C-alpha cells in the first residue's frame, strides 16, 4: 500500500482530470467534488509520504520503476528524497487549497479544473522524477496548462505603464521591456510565459541530451548517471564539456525560478493569472527551477557545480534587490506579490550558491515556506480582486471594515512572507543567512536589505488595501465567511505556523536530502566509486551529523563541518 504512495500522489490529479472530461458542466457541484476529491487523495497520500519518509535512512525512498522505452533508455523512475518530499507536500497543499480558492468560477469550470489538475500533477511529477527524460517531460507539460489558465480565466492588466510610473519617471521593468511592447493583455502574458519557458527549457533539453550522449550509458536515469557518468575534462569549444552542460542546464531551469535577468515573464504571468493559478505558479511552479537544478546539475555535475555556482550568487543579488524595488513601486496587487516572489526566489539561489548544509537546507525549507506564504497572499489578492474587480492599490482602501477575516489573514501572510519568528519562513531565512555568511557576506547584506524591502512593500500594500479611507465604489465587497472560502487560507496558515513552531520533522527530512548532496559537492567523490546506487549517501551522509539535535546548536556544528567550500582560486 504505502510503497505506491507516489503513484497515488501523481496519478490522482491526472485521473481526476480524466474523469472530469466525462462530466457535464451543468453539474457544477459534481465537477468541483471530483476535482476536490482527487486533490484530497493526493494531499492525504503526500501527508503520509511526508511522515513515512525515513530521514534516518535517507536517500531516495518510495522508489518505483517502470520500463518505458528500452530503445531510448527511459524508465518511469519515481522516488523522493529529503528535497523532493516537502515540495511534493507543498504542491498538494496548494492544489487542494487552490481548488477551494477557485470554487466560485462560473465560466467553463470543468475545463478550469482539468487544466489546474494537470498543471499540479505535472509539477508533482517533476518533484519525484528520477529520470532526466521524465523530469523534462513533466516540466514541459506544466507549461501549456499555464497558457490556457492565463488566457481563458486570467484578467488583463490595465494601465500597467502608468501603474509603475512614479513622479513622472518611467520605472518600467527594464529587462522585461525587451519583449514587452507595452502590452498588458492576458493573451500577451500567456504567450510570453510559454515562449520564455519553452525557449529556456529547450536549452536544458540540449544539456540533458549532451549528458545522455557523453555519458555513453544509453540511459536517462539520474541515479545511474550520477554514479557512472564521467563528463569531466572533455575539451569542447575552448572550455570543457561539463561547463557547457552545466550552463545550459542551469540557465535553462533558472528561467522558471525566475533568476534575474530571466524573470520578466513571471510577474506579467502572475498578474494575468487567476488566483489559484498564481498560487500554484508562485508557490510551486517556480520551485521547479531550483529543484531541477539541484536534481540535474548538483547530482550529475557536482564538481562543476562547486566551480560555477558563484554565478548564481552574483545574479541572486540582482534578483533580490531588483524584485524588491519594483515591488515597492508597483501599484498592482498581483505585481507586488509577483515581484516579491521573484525577489524571494533570490534567497533560495543564495542558499544554493553557498553550498553548505545549513544554507542548502535553508533554501529547501524556504521553497516550502515560500509556497505557503505566497499562496496565502495570492489567494487573498484574488479574493480582493473578485470582490472589487480591481488590482489597483491606490483606488482601493479601508477594506478591513468589509473583510475583517481577510485582512487578519493578510497580516499573517505578510508576517510569513517577511519571515517573522513563529512562521516556517523565519527558520528558512535564518538558515540561509547564517549558512551563507561565511562565503558570501555581501549577498547576505543584500538579502537583509531585501527583507527590509519586503517589509516596506508588503506593509505599504496592506495599508493601501485594508486601511485608510474607503472607496465607496467598493461598498458591496464582503468577507470570506463560508467554510469553503476560509478553508484554503486556514490550511496554509496552519501549515506555515505549524512548521514554524514544530519544524523538527521537516528539518530532519530536508537535512537527510541535503547532507549527501553537500558531501558530494564539497568533497571530491571519485566517479563510479561503487556499484550501489545509494552507497555514497549512506556511507557519508549520516555518520557525522546528528540529525535530531536542536536547530541552532546543529547549525553551529554543521557550519564548522563545511569543507573549504569557500576557497576558490
Amino acid at each position, binding site marked *: 500500500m504505502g510503497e505506491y504512495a507516489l503513484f497515488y500522489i501523481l496519478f490522482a490529479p491526472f485521473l481526476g482530470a480524466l474523469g472530469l472530461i466525462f462530466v457535464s458542466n451543468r453539474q457544477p457541484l459534481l465537477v468541483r467534488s471530483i476535482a476536490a476529491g482527487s486533490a484530497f487523495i493526493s494531499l492525504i497520500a503526500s501527508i503520509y509520504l511526508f511522515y513515512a519518509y525515513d530521514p534516518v535512512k535517507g536517500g531516495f525512498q518510495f522508489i518505483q520503476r517502470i520500463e518505458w522505452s528500452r530503445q531510448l533508455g527511459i524508465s518511469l523512475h519515481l522516488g523522493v528524497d529529503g528535497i523532493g518530499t516537502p515540495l511534493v507536500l507543498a504542491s498538494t497543499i496548494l492544489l487542494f487549497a487552490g481548488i477551494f480558492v477557485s470554487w466560485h468560477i462560473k465560466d467553463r469550470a470543468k475545463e478550469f479544473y482539468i487544466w489546474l489538475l494537470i498543471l499540479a500533477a505535472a509539477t508533482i511529477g517533476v518533484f519525484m522524477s528520477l529520470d532526466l527524460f521524465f523530469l523534462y517531460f513533466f516540466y514541459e507539460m506544466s507549461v501549456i496548462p499555464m497558457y490556457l489558465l492565463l488566457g*481563458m480565466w486570467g484578467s488583463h492588466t490595465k494601465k500597467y505603464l502608468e501603474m509603475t510610473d512614479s513622479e513622472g519617471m518611467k520605472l518600467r521593468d527594464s529587462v522585461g521591456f525587451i519583449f514587452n511592447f507595452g502590452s498588458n493583455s492576458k493573451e500577451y502574458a500567456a504567450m510570453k510565459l510559454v515562449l520564455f519557458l519553452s525557449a529556456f527549457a529547450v536549452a536544458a533539453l540540449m544539456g540533458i541530451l549532451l549528458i545522455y*550522449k557523453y555519458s555513453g550509458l544509453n540511459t536517462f536515469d539520474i541515479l545511474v548517471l550520477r554514479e557512472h557518468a564521467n563528463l569531466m575534462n572533455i575539451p569542447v569549444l575552448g572550455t570543457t564539456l561539463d561547463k557547457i552542460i552545466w550552463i545550459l542546464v542551469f540557465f535553462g531551469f533558472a528561467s522558471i525560478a525566475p533568476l534575474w535577468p530571466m524573470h520578466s515573464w513571471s510577474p506579467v504571468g502572475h498578474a494575468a493569472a487567476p488566483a489559484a493559478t498564481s498560487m500554484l505558479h508562485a508557490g510551486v511552479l517556480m520551485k521547479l527551477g531550483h529543484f531541477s537544478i539541484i536534481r540535474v546539475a548538483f547530482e550529475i555535475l557536482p564538481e562543476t557545480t562547486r566551480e560555477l555556482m558563484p554565478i548564481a550568487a552574483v545574479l541572486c543579488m540582482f534578483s533580490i534587490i531588483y524584485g524588491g524595488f519594483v515591488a515597492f513601486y508597483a501599484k498592482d496587487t498581483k505585481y507586488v506579490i509577483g515581484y516579491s516572489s521573484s525577489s524571494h526566489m533570490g534567497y533560495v539561489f543564495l542558499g544554493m550558491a553557498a553550498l553548505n548544509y545549513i544554507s542548502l537546507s535553508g533554501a529547501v525549507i524556504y521553497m516550502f515556506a515560500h509556497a505557503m506564504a505566497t499562496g496565502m497572499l495570492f489567494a487573498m489578492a484574488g479574493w480582493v480582486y473578485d470582490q472589487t474587480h480591481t488590482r489597483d492599490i491606490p483606488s482601493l482602501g479601508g477594506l478591513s471594515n468589509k473583510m475583517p477575516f481577510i485582512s487578519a489573514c493578510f497580516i499573517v501572510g505578510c508576517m510569513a512572507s517577511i519571515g517573522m519568528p513563529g512562521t516556517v519562513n523565519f527558520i528558512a531565512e535564518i538558515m540561509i543567512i547564517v549558512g551563507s555568511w561565511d562565503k558570501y557576506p555581501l549577498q547576505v547584506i543584500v538579502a537583509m536589505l531585501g527583507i527590509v524591502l519586503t517589509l516596506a512593500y508588503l506593509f505599504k500594500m496592506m495599508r493601501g488595501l485594508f486601511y485608510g479611507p474607503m472607496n465607496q465604489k467598493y461598498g458591496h465587497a464582503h468577507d470570506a465567511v463560508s467554510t469553503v472560502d476560509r478553508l484554503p487560507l486556514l490550511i496554509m496558515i496552519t501549515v506555515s505556523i505549524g512548521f514554524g513552531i514544530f519544524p523538527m520533522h521537516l528539518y530532519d527530512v530536508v537535512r537527510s536530502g541535503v547532507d549527501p548532496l553537500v558531501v558530494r559537492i564539497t568533497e571530491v567523490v571519485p566517479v563510479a566509486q561503487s556499484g550501489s546506487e545509494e552507497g555514497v549517501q549512506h556511507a557519508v551522509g549520516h555518520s557525522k551529523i546528528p540529525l535530531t539535535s536542536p536547530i541552532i546548536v546543529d547549525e553551529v556544528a554543521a557550519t564548522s563541518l563545511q569543507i573549504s567550500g569557500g576557497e576558490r582560486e
Partner: protein
Amino acid sequence: MIFSLNLSFSDLLLLLPEILLTCWLCLVITVDFVSPRLPKEQLAYLSVAGLVLTLGCLAWFDVAHVSGALFGNMFVLDRMAIFFKVFILGATILVILSSVEYVNRFTLFRGEYYVLVVMSAIGMMFMASANDLLSVFVSLEFSTLGFYVLVSYLREDMASNEAGLKFFILGVFAAGLFAYGISLVYGETGQLVFSEMSSAQATPGLIIGFLLIFAALGFKIGAVPFHSWIPDTYHGAPTPVTAFLSIAPKGAALVILLRIFLVALASFKPVWVYLLVAVSIVSMTYGNIVAIAQRNIKRLLAYSGIAQIGNVLIGLAAGTKMGSDAILFYLLAYLFANIGAFAVVIAVSHAIGRDEIEDYRGLNRRSPFLAFAMLLFLLSLAGVPPLAGFIGKLYIFVAAIKEGLYTLITVGLINIVISMYYYLIVVKQMYINEPIDPSPIRISGPMKAVIYVGLAGTLVIGIYPQPFTDWVVDATLMFSNFLTPSATAVPSPVHVGG
C-alpha cells in the same frame, strides 16, 4: 539482372495486398457504374472495407514474417515495406472517412473520387516496396497521377484549379528530373537496384544523378528548395485531399529516401550528411518562420508540414539505424496529429464554409470537442509532452546527438519554440477569443471517428510508446546489414551540396 517472369503462387502471395486492393478497386468502380443511385457514402464504406481487408492481409504478413523479393529485386516485401504499407493504408482509410461529408461539395464524379484515392494508395504501396530506380519511377508517377486529378476536384473553384495546375506542372518537372537522374546513375553504375549500387565509385555523373533524384523526391516531401508548390496546392485542393497529400506521399517518398541514402549510398555518408543537414536546417527554419505570417489554417499546416519534414530529415542525416527508427516513429506520430488536424479543419469548414484562422474564434464555446482535439493535434505537432509528437522529436534528437549533429539539434530545438508560437495563435483563437456566432457546430459520425482515432493515436503513442518503438525497430532491421556502427571515412570525399 535476370528477370524471371514465371511467377509461382508463393511469389504472387507477396503481391497479395496490391492484387487484393486492385481487384477491390475494380469492384468499387463496377458498383458505382451499375448502380448509379447508390448513395455515394456507401462507396466510401465499400472502399474502406477493402482497405481494411488489405490491412488485415498485411497484419498477417507481419505476424507470419512473410518476406521476399520479386522481379529481380525490383519489388521487395521486407519489414519496412510492410510498415509503410500499413502506414499508407491507415492514412487512406482516415482520409476516405473524413471525405464522406466533403464529397457532397463536388458537382460531378463523386464516386470516382474514392476510386482515385484508392488508386493513389495502390501506387504508394508499390513505392513502399520499390527497390529499384525504375520501379520507383513507375510507382511514383502512378500514384501522382491520381493526385493531379484529386487536387483540382473542385471544378468551379479557381483556387483548386490553380492548385491542380501548379502541382501538375511542377510534378511533371520533378518527374523529368527523376528520369534524368536515373539515366545518369544507370549510365555510371550499370545498376538500377539499390542494394547493388553500394559499391559504386563517386563519379560526377553519379553525384549529379543522385542530386537530381534527391531533388525530385524533395519535391514530393516538400523540403525547402523544392517546396514552392506546397502552400498553394494545399490551400486550393479539397481539404481531405490536402490531408492525404500532406501525409501519404511523404511517407512513400521517405521510404525511398531511406532506401537510397541508407542502402545505395551508405558508404557516402560523410558526403551526403552535409546536403541533408543543409536542407533540414533550411526547411525547419523557413517553414516555421513563414508559418507565423499565415492567416489561413490550411496554409499554416502546409508550412508547418515543411518544417516537420525538416525535422524528419534530421533523422535521415543521422544516417543510422536509430535515425531510421526515429523517422518511422515520427511519421506515425505525424500521421495521427496531421490527419486529425485536417479532420478538424474539414469539420469546421463544413459548418462555417471558410478556412481562415480567425474563423476559429471561440471554437471552444461552439464545440468543446473539436477545440480540444485541435489543441492536442497542434500541440503534438509542436512537440509538447505527453503527446506523440514530443516522443517523435525526442527520438530524432537522440538519434542525431549520437552522431554528433549538434548544430542540427540546436536549430531543431530553437524551431520547436518558434513553432510553439504559431500553433498557440490558433489555440488562442479557439480558447481565449469569444465567438462571433456562438451556434454549436455539428460533427458527422465518420468525422468523429477520424478525430477519435487521431486523438487515440496521439495520446497512446505519447504515453505508452514501447509497442510502437518495438515495431519501428523491427521494421528497420534490414538497415543494420548496410550500416556499420561508425561510418568509415570515404577515401576522397567529393563535396556536394552544403
